[in-house]
């Protein structure tokens, strides 16, 4: 009966109660969606590269190697000689190895030289291979395969010409050897989307007439001659390695790290990703803190709403008291009302979240490559909802205590 009366009392003040509930629902939905995006981003981040056992590069830090080889952020400190690459590739533990050569760019996007093996072995989001949505892979020397974002940003279609610039943000263009867009990779949500992929040989080819980062004046080898040259590189930037048995990963890593001919570094991508996430994670906590503050604001609104309703409800309190209700019952009634509002708000917020997810998921996936899972609420989400209801009950204690004191002082007499 008390519950029914509390509900009736809330219904009677439908407008203010509705607004308060809406504020709670929106804040809960915001908080939960931040949680969703956060976990989604984290999973998507960890899924940037999978199926690769080791990443190999010149000796530097593991996060740095991961950043330039996978995320194409920053630059390599040094190269790996082709000789060392060959040595490692010929190890019996190695199942496959994909060389990567970086350093050139096209507009704001990085150009990556690699081999067809990259398309066979690069995996993301738990083992998904790259799919060439339009066109085909690297066939001709001057073929370029571009990521979805490159195509979308620059408006490229299969067959368009591309001129690669030397270095990053430079004005010297390899315009004597234009490339052609051979294929466009479907959106992956990984740095591949922002990459122009050409063959390793093509990287060599555009640098035939270059020494020490500048074109040799007056020298321009015709394209026909270049095609007949031996375009085996002398050095690469990094390599992705797959081993035959997982048990051999550490042995090979140790062997590479102790490679006597050249200072090299081999890292486990998963471990380096974790390290990197710890750096990125600060922003994540800030986001959670901000959305938690929004929830707190909504609860403060709830508290203010109960406070402001107290005066007009003094008459009602007097009726309760006259009927034999203890002041504690009145306190409990107000706390119950607050908890009810928060519970309705929480459920509504959850519904808003799911509605939002259903609508936004395809958009977020195609725009950011971020896959947000829709599932039953996780234990963490449920505990957030419970915490909101609990916090509402606690924050209503303040106005409820005031009502308690008022009803003690007023008794059955309130003159209106």
């Amino acid at each position, binding site marked *: 009966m008390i519950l029914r009366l509390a509900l*009736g009392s809330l219904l009677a003040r439908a407008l203010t109660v509705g607004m308060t509930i809406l504020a709670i629902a929106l804040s809960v939905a915001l908080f939960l969606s931040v949680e969703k995006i956060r976990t989604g981003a984290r999973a998507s981040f960890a899924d940037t590269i999978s199926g690769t056992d080791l990443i190999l590069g010149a000796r530097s830090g593991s996060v740095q190697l991961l950043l330039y080889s996978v995320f194409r952020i920053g630059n390599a400190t040094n190269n790996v000689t082709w000789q060392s690459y060959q040595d490692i590739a010929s190890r019996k533990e190695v199942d496959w190895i994909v060389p990567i050569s970086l350093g050139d760019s096209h507009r704001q996007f990085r150009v990556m030289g690699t081999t067809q093996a990259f398309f066979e072995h690069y995996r993301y989001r738990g083992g998904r291979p790259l799919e060439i949505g339009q066109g085909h892979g690297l066939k001709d020397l001057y073929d370029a395969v571009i990521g979805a974002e490159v195509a979308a940003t620059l408006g490229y279609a299969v067959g368009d010409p591309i001129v690669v610039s030397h270095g990053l943000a430079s004005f010297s263009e390899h315009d004597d050897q234009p490339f052609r867009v051979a294929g466009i990779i479907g959106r992956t949500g990984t740095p591949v989307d922002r990459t122009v992929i050409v063959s390793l040989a093509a990287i060599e080819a555009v640098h035939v007439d270059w020494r020490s980062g500048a074109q040799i004046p007056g020298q321009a080898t015709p394209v026909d001659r270049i095609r007949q040259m031996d375009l085996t590189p002398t050095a690469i930037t990094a390599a992705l390695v797959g081993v035959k048995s997982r048990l051999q990963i550490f042995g090979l890593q140790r062997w590479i790290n102790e490679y006597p001919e050249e200072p090299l570094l081999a890292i486990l991508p998963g471990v380096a990703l974790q390290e990197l996430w710890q750096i990125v994670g600060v922003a994540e906590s800030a986001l959670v803190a901000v959305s938690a503050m929004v929830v707190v604001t909504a609860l403060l609104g709830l508290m203010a709403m109960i406070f402001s309703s107290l005066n007009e409800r003094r008459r009602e309190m007097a009726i309760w*008291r006259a009927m034999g209700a203890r002041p504690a019952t009145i306190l409990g009634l107000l706390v119950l009302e607050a908890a009810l509002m928060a519970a309705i708000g929480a459920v509504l917020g959850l519904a808003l979240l799911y509605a939002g997810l259903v609508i936004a998921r395809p958009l977020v996936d195609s725009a950011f490559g971020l896959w947000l899972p829709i599932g039953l609420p996780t234990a963490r989400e449920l505990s957030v909802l419970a915490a909101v209801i609990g916090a509402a009950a606690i924050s209503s204690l303040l106005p409820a205590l005031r009502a308690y004191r008022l009803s003690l002082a007023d008794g*059955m007499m309130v003159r209106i």
Partner: protein
Amino acid sequence: MLQDLRFTWPGRASFGLSVPEFWIGQGQSVLLLGESGSGKSTLLSLICGIVTADRGRVEVGGCDLSTLGAGARDRFRAERIGVIFQQFNLLPYASVADNIQLPLRFAPERRNRAAPEEAAALCAALGLPEGITGTTAGRLSVGQQQRVAVARALIGQPPLIVADEPTSALDAAAQDSFLGLLFDQIAATGASLLMVSHDERLGARFDRVLRLADIASTERAVA
């Protein structure tokens, strides 16, 4: 029954009430006349055990209220006393049935005394339309609301009914029929009735008519 009573509002030294002696016999109806601000409501609060006297005894049905704790007094009020206010007696958002049964929520003995259909029966006896029990109280006319308040005070047959100017919001004709219904029902249950009012014309129906000034003295600081 009140004896040698003295009361001051805590923190408000400006107003004090003392009652040397005042009693109501069982089944008696008493009209207490007094101007507004003469301490009528304070007296009712004392009798209902909402406030306690500084000195003296308040005895209701043989029970000395000053011996009871705050919670026990609330329970006692719920069990033994039916209260009717001037107006705005009801929880406007609750149904008539919930309003009538509200005191039973806090009074298990009274709840056991009340028959399951008593709320509806009281409504019918008080001339309220059939099927009114499901209506939200806020939609009723003032006269209907006051009759629902009577039903609420009478349910479970408490031995004492306390009414604080229940007719002041009604016009003369409605007052008369309201009092008629009230007295019929009280006679049926055998309860005592204490009504306070400033309206002397109501006196005819009561066993005793007293003036507050005759039984109590109030102290009031000069403002």
